[in-house]
């Protein structure tokens, strides 16, 4: 029999329902897997005792016939979500010792649905990065290896710890946050399904903010079905988040009926970027064939402002971040490095507390908002953003979903691209447009490249039409039949 820690969410749910095993059995298996996966450095904080307590409570609820949607399912939580009574760091030195007295809305929703917390996962500091190499708590290793090579690879980022934990079969699912691709890109790098829902679908309350107008929580799972299951539990309207949207949360799993006959799928020409590996072109063509075979019609579309998305993103996101991170001043919580004056205290605290990438973005953001540069940078970026949204709005008059690659490359080795921040930023080229326009996007593992590394395809949906997006993703998943496993699987 498969190890319990290797089951998907849906398989675990079915086993729990049948009484084949208990939530406690699942939690114990995942705790053991978490221990054996420590070399990946996927977790900043492990919470095995809490997992066992929550599992026991879950079993008790099930015995009373009160099982929730994710009853008894162990999950890993990105360390950007505030968890009551559990250290929350955003992978930053500046939040040293910060234990929130409150629980984020998304995690509270998950616990209400019966899920069990395994621990808090590593990530890029304040979610700034695409390789999980900017964490104060060290790099995360991708469980995948290139064939015939043992060099550690990045898991992608910023939700790299969550992706590594799910790929290594520690947890069947994990939460992530996606500001410019931070769920979808690590999903692609680790052979997982990673979904960013529509902006406003999941509450941002209690999630440490990076760029407020772009941040959105979502799941990292091994299957599209699991993604649908997790989203149903995570999503809610939250009066505490003014940007969350008051719409009913559908049963996303019910949308996975494989029926895409007659759907129109847009293929944007602007996503053929220079220097993109032929293998990625090839899986994109495969994706088109798979969807056509299922009865969908491919439509060539143009999203003319795509090439401006990345520069606009790298103005808007740092601008908001520079302001969002101003609260880490050493006055009330986290790290304080004393100084003779308030200014000296700020400088010492922030100088020591923030890593290089965070400082870089705070400086970029401060610069683009400063007097004399505001119009040239920030205001122009806002206008570009409006044009990008218009591109999508016009495209969705003709199509029901859009198919693109997720990332322009497969996972790369740790240290391979760190010398040049710009080449690192290019990782997000296919994912940022969905953040800038607020649209949902999902990455589905499609194939392995010549090195034996997973590559992902992205489906972008209409705002709040996660159901169509998931339906298309489900068809891609079935057609791809991706069943490759990473080099490292916990406990093997």
């Amino acid at each position, binding site marked *: 029999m498969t190890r319990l820690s290797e089951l998907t969410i849906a398989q675990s749910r079915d086993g729990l329902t049948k009484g084949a095993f208990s939530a406690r059995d699942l939690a114990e298996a995942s705790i053991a897997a978490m221990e054996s996966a420590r070399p990946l450095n996927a977790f900043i904080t492990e919470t095995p005792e809490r997992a066992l307590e929550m599992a026991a409570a879950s079993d008790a609820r099930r015995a009373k016939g009160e099982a929730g949607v994710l009853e008894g399912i162990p999950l890993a939580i990105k360390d950007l979500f505030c968890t009551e009574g559990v250290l929350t760091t955003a992978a930053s030195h500046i939040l040293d010792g910060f234990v929130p007295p409150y629980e984020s809305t998304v995690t509270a929703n998950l616990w209400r649905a019966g899920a069990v917390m395994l621990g808090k996962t590593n990530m890029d500091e304040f979610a700034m990065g695409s390789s999980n190499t900017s964490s104060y708590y060290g790099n995360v290793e991708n469980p995948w290896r290139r064939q015939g090579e043992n060099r550690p690879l990045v898991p992608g980022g910023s939700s790299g710890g969550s992706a590594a934990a799910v790929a290594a079969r520690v947890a069947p699912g994990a939460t992530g946050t996606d500001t410019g691709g931070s769920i979808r890109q690590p999903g692609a790098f680790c052979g997982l399904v990673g979904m960013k829902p529509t902006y406003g679908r999941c509450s941002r309350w209690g999630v440490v903010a990076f760029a407020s107008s772009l941040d959105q929580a979502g799941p990292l799972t091994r299957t599209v079905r699991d993604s649908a299951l997790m989203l149903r539990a995570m999503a809610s309207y939250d009066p505490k988040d003014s940007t969350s949207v008051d719409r009913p949360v559908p049963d996303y799993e019910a949308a996975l009926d494989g029926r895409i006959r007659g759907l129109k799928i847009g293929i944007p020409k602007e996503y053929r970027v220079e220097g993109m590996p032929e293998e990625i072109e090839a899986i994109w063509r495969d994706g088109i064939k798979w969807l056509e075979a299922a009865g969908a019609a491919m439509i060539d579309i143009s999203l003319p402002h795509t090439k401006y998305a990345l520069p606009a993103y790298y103005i808007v996101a740092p601008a908001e971040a520079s302001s969002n991170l101003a609260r880490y*001043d050493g006055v009330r919580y986290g790290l304080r490095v004393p100084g003779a004056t308030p200014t000296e205290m700020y400088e010492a605290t922030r100088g020591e507390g923030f890593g290089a990438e965070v400082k870089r973005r705070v400086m970029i953001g401060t610069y683009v908002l400063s007097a004399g540069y505001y119009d040239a940078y920030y205001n122009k970026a806002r206008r570009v953003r409006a044009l990008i949204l218009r591109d999508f709005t016009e495209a969705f008059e003709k199509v029901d979903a859009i198919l693109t690659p997720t990332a322009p490359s497969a996972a790369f080795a740790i240290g391979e691209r760190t010398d040049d921040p710009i080449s690192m930023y290019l990782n997000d080229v296919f994912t940022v447009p969905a953040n800038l326009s607020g649209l949902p996007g999902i990455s589905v593992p499609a194939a392995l490249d010549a090195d034996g590394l997973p590559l992902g395809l992205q489906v972008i949906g209409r705002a709040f039409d996660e159901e169509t997006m998931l339906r298309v993703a489900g068809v891609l998943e079935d057609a791809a039949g991706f069943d490759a496993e990473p080099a490292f699987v916990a406990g093997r």
Partner: protein
Amino acid sequence: MSLIQGETGEWEMVIGLEVHAQVIAESKLFSGAATAFGAEPNTQVSLVDAAMPGMLPVLNEKSVEQAVKTGLGLNAQINLSSVFERKNYFYPDLPQGYQISQYLQPIVGEGVVTLDLPDGSAKEVGIERLHLEQDAGKSLHDQHPSQTYIDLNRSGVTLMEIVSKPDMRSAEEVGAYLEKLRSILRYLGTCTSNMEEGSMRCDVNVSVRHPGEALGTRTETKNVNSIRFAKQAIEHEAKRQIALIEGGGAVVQETRLFDPNKGVTRAMRSKEEAHDYRYFPDPDLLPVVLDADWVAALKRDLPELPDAKKARFIADFGLNAYDAGVLVAEREIAEFFEAVVASGKGCDPKQAANWVTGAFFGALNRDGIEIAAAPVNAAKLGGLLELLDAGTISGRIAKDVFDAMWDSGKDAAAIVEEKGLKQISDTGAIEAIVDQVIADNPGQVEQFKSGNEKVLGWFVGQIMKASQGKANPGMVNQLLRKKLG
């Protein structure tokens, strides 16, 4: 307009004000924390106010309503769409590292306030804008020899910043503006406007010029927390600027601080003001979109404001502008006055005004109490005036009755009855007193007969005295003339 004589001619002050008015609301602008004044430090602080990680602002609708009401009260344009922006700067009592404020798109646009000047004239001062913003916390420097403590009770409390146009020309006008603004805000119930408690604070922009010339360079003086200080700061600042210019120097556009102990302004250290606030729309908040019908309903339900009330008091009650102005300055007084008029059947409103502003205010001031605590309420004062107007008691007796009412809290009629103070209007009774006084004073009778009319007044006094003030003075006069005639 008051001009200042300098060595190079007359100078005119040009003054504009930025008033920060704390909005009356149960909770803060973006959090549910309470806002009571004077609570123990850090007892009214939500997770949002302390800027804990992941916390988000949620706009308090009451604050929006109060701002719109105030805008309507200032005869101002209400902007149906407005935007909250972040004003970024570091300070230990600013937990977020930014203040949420409105910048390019405020909730209220241009309006106008009419000043009642001491000489009885009126003057209009333009309102540039009104916007909503968060207050900061307080740094407490006196709790520890070397460290600063932070109290976040005020952090996030709603402020309205009301910006005037540079329409004022003297310290008196500034005083009248602040008084009028305070009066309007109190009528509306949108701000308690207690400068002592800090619920209303102002920054003063002053420049000087020779009349008719272009505007001079202005300075902004902060930390002015009473009307008296505002006047002092303006006088000092104008004189300083004139001396500077006449001495061959130039005014520097800068932020200054008022020192209330010395009554002077001083420049802030450049470090204190060198800010690039990097305003940008707050991505945690949606634009504030108001429904025109909702605004119209608020407008319909506005209370009668001081200007309208004053006009009505003049038109309906025949009051003069000064008395009307005094009575409407505070909503409570105006309401008290109207209640007195309403309860004293047939009483003369002008007489009522005199009693309210005279004996009644005098007693309030003497005892240092508020209207609500006064032992004589409006109905009782009305009852007294009713007796006076009906001729039941004389004016002199009325003063005594008022004092007795104030001391005992009893009705005027009861006191008059109890003490037998009813005016004597019985001809026979008065005649007896008149006859007695004439008989007792033959010398004065002689003087009168030899043409000294003044003696008549002396006789009236003697007769009133003999009647213990109760004789009807009209009848006394009539009888005296007849008898002495």
